[in-house]
């Protein structure tokens, strides 16, 4: 059995197991910390930064930072919310997000976070980058306009599907998601049932068939903010 560690989130004492990250321990305690690149079944990656918390006063990513005895974590404060809002704003302006016709709209984790933070418009100017769409595969497509470079697909394809279909190429503003073949999705061994597709938090990896099946008003985040399930678990206790 791993040792029990006691630390503080927003002034409340919380217990976690040694080796847990702040994000995991907080979630077990019913405290939702926003996240995009983190996913239970994947190894931590620490790229999106929306899970930023203050650990003993310093900004850290909750999804990669291990808990420690007597650590003081600040998550639910205006200062932390401002950092997270800025990151969400940047993710929107760095891509081209046409939510009104996006297959994932209503179920998208990026959009849901923006809703949760009450963002009516990003505060930065839109960059309108030029991004390529890969329609080559008969059943799946990559819409890079919507990709937030979270690497969930990279990790899921490698660790869950055991295929390594995806990888990043380029640096800085030119960084983009690519496939492990000459360059087209159809040339890979990806399968329409692969975990790597459903695990994309946004609408960058889409199955061509069955889109828009769920009507407006019945989608995942139409009525309740993302993270409500975790927070409800705490309230029920």
């Amino acid at each position: 059995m791993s040792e029990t560690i006691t630390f503080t989130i927003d002034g409340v004492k919380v217990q976690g197991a040694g080796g847990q990250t702040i994000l995991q321990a907080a979630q077990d305690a019913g405290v939702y910390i926003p996240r995009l690149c983190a996913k239970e079944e994947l190894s931590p990656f620490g790229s999106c930064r929306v899970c930023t918390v203050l650990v003993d006063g310093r900004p850290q990513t909750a999804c990669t930072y291990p808990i420690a005895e007597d650590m003081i974590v600040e998550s639910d404060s205006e200062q932390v919310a401002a950092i997270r809002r800025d990151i969400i704003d940047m993710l929107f302006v760095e891509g081209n997000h046409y939510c009104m016709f996006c297959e994932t709209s209503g179920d998208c984790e990026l959009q849901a976070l923006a809703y949760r933070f009450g963002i009516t418009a990003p505060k930065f100017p839109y960059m309108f980058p030029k991004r390529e769409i890969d329609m080559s595969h008969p059943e799946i497509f990559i819409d890079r306009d919507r990709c937030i470079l979270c690497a969930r697909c990279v990790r899921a394809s490698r660790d869950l599907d055991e295929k390594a279909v995806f990888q990043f190429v380029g640096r800085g503003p030119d960084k983009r998601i690519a496939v492990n073949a000459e360059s087209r999705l159809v040339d890979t061994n990806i399968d329409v049932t692969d975990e790597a597709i459903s695990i994309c938090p946004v609408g960058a990896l889409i199955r061509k068939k069955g889109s828009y099946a769920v009507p407006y008003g019945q989608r995942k985040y139409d009525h309740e903010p993302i993270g409500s399930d975790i927070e409800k678990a705490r309230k029920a206790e």
Partner: protein
Amino acid sequence: MSKPKIATTSMCGCFGCHMSILDIDERILDLVELVEFDKSPITDLKEFTGRCAVGLIEGSCANDENVRTLQKFRENCDVLVAVGGCAITGDIPAMRNNIPLQECFNEAYLDGPTVYNPDKLIPSDPEIPLILDRIYPCDEVVKIDYFLPGCPPSADAIWAALTALLTGQPLELSYEMIKYD
């Protein structure tokens, strides 16, 4: 005291946001009690007749006429609200922002699969508004005070915003009123 005035315009949009304004249904009767409509497609007034409390902007700037309209709204309205995705982000019209203007013209007037244009003319009459190099979201052109996202924003969101702004209450949108689709 006379009623406050509101003005509305549709620039590079689809008029869907104006449809959503009309979608407030019978509450439009309450609205008429609260305000007087000035320059707006609803009144068909082409020019401002006086200072307006609120200006609602649908659509982004695609041409020089849109820019002038937006500047006039800023001059004549105390509060400007960007209504809908196009006004806020450019949205669907902004899909051309990555395509050189000449290519857009070629597709629209010369090469498009349904184009019939035997003289191969691309319209350039001075009467036609001059198209801009790209779509400009409203807040890149003038200061915008409030943003009401949605494609279109729901009638409830528009109603909540209008009643708050016209009665001097803080504008608070519930979770279900902020939608991007």
